[in-house]
């Protein structure tokens, strides 16, 4: 049984796994379709039925003079957009790329506006209610120094 299993390893792994050294850039642009969630370059399945032949094909195609984009376009034509490891930079997919930054900018703008408003309101409240009208600049400076000590 053990011998059979060892033979199975030899058989299953022969010529498989990591035999080809295709250019990393193209392989990284293609998503492996075996369910590993990785790119063709990083797929860790020993005899992956997708990544291994694609790596070989990429190497051959590059050697034959095909450009990276031509190879990618060929795979997209065959498998659809899902073969790309990242969304394209066009149409609806722009939302994927810019959505997070848009949300961040919106958040930053809201935050800045809100903080300004609160700071302004605080200043108004201080001038209306605070005893600072009677405070001398020396007293104010001393207050700042003392508060700084408390805060640090």
């Amino acid at each position, binding site marked *: 049984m*053990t011998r059979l*299993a*060892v033979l*199975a*390893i*030899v*058989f*299953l*792994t*022969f010529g498989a*796994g*990591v*035999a080809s*050294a295709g250019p*990393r850039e193209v392989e*990284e*642009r293609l*998503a492996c379709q075996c*369910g*590993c*969630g*990785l*790119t063709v370059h*990083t*797929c*860790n399945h*020993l*005899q992956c039925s997708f990544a291994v032949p694609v790596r070989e094909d990429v190497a051959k195609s590059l050697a034959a003079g095909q450009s990276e984009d031509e190879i990618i376009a060929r795979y997209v034509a065959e498998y*659809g*957009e*899902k*073969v*790309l*490891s*990242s*969304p394209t930079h066009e149409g*609806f*997919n722009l939302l*994927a*790329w810019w*959505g*997070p*930054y848009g*949300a*961040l900018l919106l*958040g*930053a703008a809201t*935050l*800045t506006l809100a*903080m*300004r408003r*609160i*700071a302004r*309101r*605080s200043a108004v*409240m*201080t001038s209306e209610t605070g005893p600072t009208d009677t405070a001398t600049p020396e007293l104010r400076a001393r207050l700042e120094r003392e508060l*700084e000590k408390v*805060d*640090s």
Partner: protein
Amino acid sequence: MVIVGNLALHLALGTSLYAVFASVYGAQRRHAAFTASGRHAAFATVGLIAIASAVMVHALVVHDFSIKYVASYSSTTLPLRYRIAALWGGMEGSLLFWVLLLASLTALALVQNRDRNLELMPYVTATCMTVAAFFVSLLVFITPPFAKLAFVPAEGTDLNPLLQNYWMSIHPPSLYLGYVSWTIPFGFAIAALATGRLDDLWIRTSRRWALAAWFFLALGNLFGARWAYEVLGWGGYWAWDPVENAAFMPWLTGTAYLHSVMIQERKDMLKVWNLCLIILTFALTIFGTFLTRSGVISSVHSFTQSGLGPYFLGFLGAVLAVSIALLVRRLGELKPSHRLDSVVSRESAFLFNNLILLGIAFATFWGTVFPVLSEWVRGVKITVGPPFFNQVNAPLGIMLLFLMGVGPIVAWRRATVAKLVRTFAIPTSVGLVAGGIAFALGMRSLSAVLVTSLAAFVLQTIAHEFHRGARARMAMTSDGYLTAMLGLVGRNRRRYGGYVVHLGVVFMFLGVTMSSVYRVEEIHTVKPGASFNVGDFELRYDGVRDLSDDHVARLAADLTVHRDGREIASLHPEKRFYKRPEQPATEVDYRSTLSEDLYVILGSIGEDRSTATFQVYINPLVAWLWIGGVVLVIGTGICVLPTRFRRATERVEDTEAARTRGRLA
């Protein structure tokens, strides 16, 4: 035994539901006997779930293959430690384990607060037991863990070989602890909303719980990364898989929460924001469970995939609806009593830190769900893989690193330009010099130079904070430098523990950036006795050995590693073939040093064992990712250790609690 397990689960459903009812009824009617009864029902739930879990573990240990779960996730040849770990290896078992942790933590929180916060505790009990009741009802009605097979197989299918690993034994428990622990601070937040005690009592009481939850989530993610690094064999540790993202998102929002509560405690601001953050964090833990178990988004973590998605989605909706309704009801009472003195202050630095953390969480969420959105809107399936997440999150991560340096040194309330220049002159110079040195040494990647520069900037600010504090203490106490430093940390555990955590995060940033940008990767096919070079290393392939046993067939390649003509290591990467279920696997081997890891995968073995193909990686500074993790553990430890001198406010709180107790009794 099965009947005992089933009975325990059914009773646990009853006790958890009763705990919800009795706690709320008791609190509403100010009926102490009912709240006590609710508390006891929660304890009973722990006992019953513990019984059900013990029955399951016993069945796994004694190979009771009449139970479907045991037959599916264990075998007679599976080592004992993995038979026990099989409790969380499959869907039903992991749900049972989840509810065991939740009930236990609830009981711990109840014991901890038996004489305190009596006003809040019934609602904490009710919230935690509602969550427990939901999980138990899934176990009772939808996926019973003790379901029997029509026949008893002679052998089990066995645990997935990928899960038969040390790190996998500890990764899920720590991750689950992280997920589950967030229920407690969430419970306190709901209790604050329900009772109208909207000051920072709920935050102070649940602070250690939040820190523990954050810590375990961090640990769970790190253990998972370590497992991926050692087991999956692709030279990396994080693949932005949806389930990884699911655990990362609540950690990010939890980090934001831990920072912003400091402002509420200090300035009585951000009350609504903190409630929103804790609700969001808890909701994300449920969303994570939904992602793991629904199969809506394809993931490598399919071990626990099932048809439970709609139930989790429904529960998530209910959680959000109830929480938001309570929050909206109390909005009028949540006005800040303190004021913001200036937009340029530590308060605003903390707020921008919150913004970036939430930005990363949103980018991660967006990338995770975008394939579903695309299919919905365009009808086109797309993949959002690791390159997207790296590209989108890298700039945000760099901004976060910058703010990590800014936050601790910018003044509270108001920072003047002169003060800013004075404070930032040295750290900025240190950062620029470090970036310059990195560039002069040949570093040409913008992100690597930026991270090096910012890491130096942050490290300087941390070192300066410790130094400044120690000097101030020396002046006060006439202690020596080291004693003053220790005294400083001892008296301000939270602040200095936080700085230590920051130190750990800086190490992680360095490890992740350098190992991603400067990774070397080569493939070599060689005959026994032959050598090949990768970077500065010379590797000699000495041959292959058969290490098979009854459970697994193993072939190990022997490699001797030389550097500068000196033998420095021997590595033994393996190819494995598990017999049940029949599945091949790799076992990588690596030599780890502070400067780099030499990481070797045995790719394939020639037909007559005459050749072997190795995939070799040099991962620079990757050890600092794990060292950063250890530093993070130390920092969190410093934060949570009890301080010798309790704050006066806490003492006042206790007196108040004693009064409330008197009223209730």
